[in-house]
């Protein structure tokens, strides 16, 4: 080896120079350019059809200054603040009830969607339910709920519970699939029934994860319940929508600050509780 390489550059003429090109992550270079081209075409097509022009954009920025100007300072009159508090409590109450209701409905779906526990037909049915509830945005659900059930917090609770199903069942089913089946078999082997083996073999393994997920979803539900009021489904969003329609932008600002504060507190509480239970 040593003698071979003693004059590395001298031994090689220009004729037998090797070349190197960076290998592509795609199947070949043509695929690579095709993918890049397709992505660029998609972007170009999008920009073109949305007709986003610098002029429109800049004049919008100008209005932005006016908007911010009319938002400041936020409305803090006592009557306004009182209404804000009232609606905020409603918002939190909605999130509480919706979380409990949503999780109650999610539990059977989650067990049904756990491949290691549930029989095949149930599994597919549950997975289908999860996909469908996840794909439709919460606000669309809320609008339909408002039409079906009338204005007010009930529509919001139904919408938020509905969105909870997809999220909670999916993640909880994944936790159920991760459990150690050895323990379940051991309990089974003692002659326990299917239900008993669930209680003794499965439940203890997943209780901490369950609690963590529940709190996490509660945090997300607080966010959602601040919004559903925009379509009339109760909570602080109702106030936001009303202030917006009356051009009371200073009140809009106050409501937004309140929403951000509540969301942050919920996020913090959820993080602390999750750290403790897991």
């Amino acid at each position, binding site marked *: 080896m040593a003698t071979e390489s003693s004059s590395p550059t001298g031994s090689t003429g220009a004729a037998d120079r090797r070349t190197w090109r960076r290998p592509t992550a795609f199947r070949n270079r043509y695929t690579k350019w095709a993918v890049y081209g397709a992505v660029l075409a998609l972007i170009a097509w999008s920009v073109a059809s949305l007709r986003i022009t610098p002029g429109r954009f800049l004049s*919008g920025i100008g209005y932005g200054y006016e908007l911010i100007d009319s938002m400041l300072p936020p409305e803090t009159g006592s009557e306004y603040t009182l209404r804000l508090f009232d609606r905020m409590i409603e918002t939190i109450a909605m999130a509480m009830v919706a979380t409990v209701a949503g999780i109650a409905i999610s539990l059977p779906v989650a067990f049904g969607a756990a491949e290691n526990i549930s029989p095949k037909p149930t599994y597919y049915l549950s997975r289908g339910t999860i996909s469908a509830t996840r794909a439709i945005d919460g606000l669309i659900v809320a609008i339909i709920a408002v*039409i079906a059930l009338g204005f007010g917090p009930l529509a919001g609770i139904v919408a938020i519970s509905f969105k909870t199903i997809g999220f909670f069942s999916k993640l909880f089913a994944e936790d159920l699939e991760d459990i150690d089946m050895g323990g379940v078999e051991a309990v089974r082997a003692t002659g326990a029934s299917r239900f008993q083996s669930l209680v003794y073999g499965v439940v203890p393994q997943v209780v901490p994860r369950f609690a963590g997920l529940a709190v996490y979803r509660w945090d997300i539900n607080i966010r959602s319940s601040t*919004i559903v009021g925009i379509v009339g489904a109760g909570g602080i969003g109702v106030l936001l929508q009303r202030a917006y329609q009356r051009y009371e932008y200073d009140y809009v600002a106050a409501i937004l600050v309140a929403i951000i504060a509540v969301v942050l507190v919920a996020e913090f509480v959820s993080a602390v509780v999750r750290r403790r239970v897991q």
Partner: protein
Amino acid sequence: MAGATREWSRFDARERLFRIGGVLVAVAVVVGSWEWLDMSLQYVTTAPAQVGDLFGRMVPPDWGYLPNAVGPLAETIQIAVVGTIAAVAMAAPVAYITAENTTPNRATYALGKFIVTVSRSVHTIVWALLFVVMFGPGALAGTVATAVRSIGFLAKLLGEEIEEIDFGQVEGVRATGASPAQLLVYGIVPQIKPALVGLSVYRWDINVRAATILGFVGAGGIGVQLFEAIDSFAWRTVSALLIAILGVVLVSEGVSAYARRKVR
């Protein structure tokens, strides 16, 4: 009971008290919430029937309407595409100042956290309300709302990725005498590229879903048609549109999952 001298229970007394207390508080809060909301139980018992009735009026879906939905569905995807790209461009510097190991000083760090928090705490639809005031109704407001809402998400996760960078790899390149630009291209970009591409595609997929509702406040997309149909109680059109939305969302979810699997 005969001869039972030892007792066993799963938790000791204090722990049990703590657990029971926690459950009681939770129950009390939920019951209190229910009371506060002041909804009559009768209302709740009729709800399933009313929802069922609504679904009954939705079948069969009015497939004939769907050709009219192609344009708005395309616009929904376009809003997500442009919104996501704009968000990535704006999120990159924010991620840089939000990552503890690259932020220049405490003030920039705080600024980064502030942008992330505000962007994430305000829902797309609220951003859309504000931008409709600025840009007027239409897809531009929806695109900007989508972008602004996505900055926080992208900057937060990208910032976490930057915090994970292995500086040994950067040091190895630096030791060869590379320039700062080369360090970036050779030592840093390869480390965050998979995350950047993966997160962007993932956020695009979330944004497709979020863009379906922008129409409610007049910010473009399929939502405009959907809410017109709802307002005119054209339930069979609504169900056809919902199924179309479901299809688009599932396809973009599939594309996004495929792309993220490929990039590593």
